[in-house]
């Protein structure tokens, strides 16, 4: 089973990076990082920049997840599905593929500020960047990217055939997720509905007004986002399994 999952992930990776789908998200990330860590804005807060980057990574992975799931052809899926002969194997590989893409994005978003900080002799951040900061940064980013790709890939063509509606719903959900705190503050009753969205506000609530990371808090944020992403992936896979083609 692991061999098949491995082959499926390799196949999806090969198709993704041979195509042009990765170019625009990559360019957008480069622009974001360039602006975020440009000398004009120095020094930036370590934790603050992490919170902002988490939101960026979330949105980027929504985009990546949406583009990946929209590009999937039912015929291609059918041919693969017959070969693999295992629903668990097939859907697990799709989830792993997106998680790996998210991890690549996280590494880029983490390495860039570290390199900039080194090149500027520690001038990019308002305080010295420690290994502890880097680990916490990565943990929180991983949670955000997983939540993003789970939302982006949720409205798969087999979950929602109307692609325009799928894009509108995904953009709406992503926007409300980012702006959840001000929305709930203005309209407390929206809490009844917004619980269904990725709990990305956990990042801002935990680290929005502090200057240092706490490993316990970082793992808590990661765990909540991770559980949300896994549940979203399972729900999507079950809908696809039930609906078939």
């Amino acid at each position, binding site marked *: 089973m692991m*061999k*098949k999952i491995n*082959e*499926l992930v*390799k*196949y999806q990776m*090969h*198709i993704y990076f*041979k*195509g*042009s789908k990765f170019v625009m998200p990559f360019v957008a990330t480069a622009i974001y990082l360039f602006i975020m860590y440009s000398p004009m804005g120095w020094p930036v807060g370590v934790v603050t920049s992490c919170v902002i980057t988490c939101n960026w990574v979330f949105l980027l992975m929504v985009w990546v997840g949406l583009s990946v799931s929209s590009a999937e*052809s039912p*015929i*291609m899926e*059918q*041919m*693969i*599905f*017959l*070969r*693999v*002969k295992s629903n668990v194997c097939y859907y697990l590989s799709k989830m792993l593929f997106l998680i790996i893409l998210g991890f690549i994005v996280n590494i880029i978003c983490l390495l860039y500020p570290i390199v900039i900080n080194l090149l500027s002799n520690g001038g990019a951040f308002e305080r010295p960047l420690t290994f502890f900061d880097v680990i916490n940064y990565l943990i929180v980013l991983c949670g955000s990217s997983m939540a993003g790709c789970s939302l982006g890939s949720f409205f798969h063509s087999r979950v929602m055939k109307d692609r325009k509606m799928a894009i509108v719903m995904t953009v709406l959900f992503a926007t409300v997720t980012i702006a959840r705190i001000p929305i709930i503050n203005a309209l407390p009753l929206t809490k009844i509905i917004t619980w269904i969205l990725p709990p990305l506000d956990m990042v801002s609530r935990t680290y929005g007004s502090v200057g240092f990371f706490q490993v316990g808090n970082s793992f808590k944020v990661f765990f909540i986002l991770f559980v949300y992403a896994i549940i979203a992936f399972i729900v999507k896979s079950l809908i696809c399994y039930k*609906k*078939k*083609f």
Partner: protein
Amino acid sequence: MEIIRLQNVSKKYDGKSVLDKINKTFEQGQSIAFVGHNGCGKSTLLKIIAKLVTSTSGDVVYNKPLLLHYIPEKFPPVSLTARQYLRHMGALDGLGKDEIKDRIESLGQDFFITDLLDTSMRSLSKGTLQKVVVLQALLKTSDVLLLDEPLSGQDVASQKVFINKINQLREQGVTIFMSCHEKRLIEAIAEDVYTITNGSLTEYNYKTQKLYLMILENAMHLPIMDEMKKYGQYYSLKVNEDECDLILPELIQKGWKLRGLYDEEDK
């Protein structure tokens, strides 16, 4: 040996019944073709057999876990070369690297696409792309092969190779299900031909159903039969093979002149 059994399989789309309580048993090594007009449910039945589409009611029962390979009519190309794509498919089939390499080379030669194996699939013509789809299904011998208009866009030489390969697979015990309009392919591969009429699966016999098209000239301004249709300056009449020998002398005796007689399939 029984391989697949359909038990009361029904399928409805938007309340319209496409398949209605189909009960059928298929044997290992059997070669079955489904024919009929577009939208009659042939492809749906193929996908129900493969469990890719769920039936509205009823069951599809396999006698053991089966490996099914599928050759679709239309195939969206991916951003890989044909060889890269086939390597991945071979790996998913559980074949070793050397075995995959050998199979790709040998099948590539058989289907005359060795030179195109390293071309991006997006740059391949429809016919060549269809050959790549055929190749992926032949990399590993499956238990069941599902063919949905498999010769779409292929050249005559490759069609012959394809027919030979499929018949070899039949000899090895592979069960073939085919949805097809091409009489020549059906005659070359299928032993049992079925059509779907009003949701039911019925046997279809080409020979008894054969139609001829008569082209007739009405030089004596005779009354036109209801079944006749204007055909340029002449009239056409479609008749069954059996009726043809009876009707034709009668018409000539009445004063009609025969200007052509065609097999409706070849027309």
